[in-house]
């Protein structure tokens, strides 16, 4: 993502929004309200350091370590902090575990609340009106639209994050992964599985 300093190279096609945001940034920097280098660090952080691979490590640990799993289910904020993931938009964490009989799914119907330290920035659809409006009323339809078909015997539990508590779904560990390392298991844990709009990958589909 380029905030580089070669803005003036080729910019006949700069869009209206690019110009507007650049104007805003210029004014704010001239006024001393922002440090442009801080913007670069913020963007880089969410592009390279804070993203769903963090959450995948949490889930893989929970799959392999029953003591950690209990801790995660009882005090997710502390258990996740023990792996080094804390802070903005994850100050108060709750983890919920899927089973054969219950599937958890997370939404923010009022805005876009999302557990940043473990999942990074939310995908566009998570912030969109169709997902936010329908997830609480027709979650099975939403899942089907995303290609997830649950057995009728699995009931759905939706968590609408309306305050500052953030939710992480622990998907079910796929069969056929006995003896796998935490690192290999983490590769099966998708972002969507941790929102509850997907399932963990099967070993055959491992990247």
């Amino acid at each position, binding site marked *: 993502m380029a905030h580089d300093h070669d803005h003036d190279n080729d910019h006949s096609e700069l*869009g209206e929004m690019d110009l507007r*945001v650049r104007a805003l940034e210029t004014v704010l920097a001239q006024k001393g309200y922002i440090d442009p280098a801080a913007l670069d660090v913020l963007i880089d952080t969410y592009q390279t350091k804070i993203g769903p691979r963090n959450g995948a490590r949490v889930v893989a640990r929970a799959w392999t370590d029953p003591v950690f799993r209990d801790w995660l289910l009882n005090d997710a904020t502390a258990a996740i902090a023990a792996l080094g993931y804390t802070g903005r938009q994850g100050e108060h964490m709750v983890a919920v575990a899927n089973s054969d009989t219950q599937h958890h799914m997370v*939404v923010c119907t009022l805005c876009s609340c999302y557990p940043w330290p473990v999942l990074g920035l939310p995908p566009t659809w998570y912030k969109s009106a*169709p997902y936010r409006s329908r997830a609480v009323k027709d979650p099975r339809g939403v899942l089907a639209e995303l290609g997830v078909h649950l057995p009728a015997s699995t009931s759905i539990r939706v968590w609408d994050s309306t305050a500052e508590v953030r939710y992480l779904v622990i998907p079910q560990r796929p069969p056929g992964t006995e003896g796998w390392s935490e690192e290999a298991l983490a590769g099966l844990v998708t972002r969507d599985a941790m929102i509850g709009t997907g399932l963990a990958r099967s070993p055959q589909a491992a990247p």
Partner: protein
Amino acid sequence: MTYTTHADLGGRNCPGPIVPEPEGELFHAAWEARALALTLAMGATGSWNIDTSRSARETLPDYERLSYYRIWLAALEKLMTERSQLLPDELAAGRMLRAPQPLRRVLRAADVPAVLAKGSPTERPGSVPARFALGQPVRMRRGPFEHHTRLPGYVQGKAGTIERLHGMHVFADAHAHGLGEQPQWLYTVAFDAPELWGAQAEPGLRVSVDAWESYLTEAA
């Protein structure tokens, strides 16, 4: 005064597809990344709090027509112009035309990791006992509310059960309007789908919201 939010979408069946997106595809234009970072950096100056910025976003008249980062950007401009930190003619000119307003602090690059890692916890130590207990049936208050609230319309007036207690948290409804933190007990309240959606509701579905104590009444 009438307070109108355009962000309370739960249960409204807003049309349109839910389009999957690969992990790592964070921005769809360079300006989106800058808009995100500008919003975070200005938020870190302490000029307003997160509830104030949510209120600024949800009351944008064209909220429903804007993409999410356009909402963020419009709210940021609104918050700054309201505080005379930014003048509309400066935005048009693309340069500073008036002296800056003093800020509480400025986010420096070197401080970003620590600021993000610290976050802004909203739990506050409380000596007030919780009014409601785990498993207790409750009924949600009804609007209309003439202020920012985090009580979604689809649960207003509905009967649910206390499923979790989260301690006392900064009360968003007050905090958004500069009325201080006024911490209250925060609960997870769960609802059976038929209570929310009637007999056509999906079998077995339960939905919860996180609700401050003043949103709740004893179930009659």
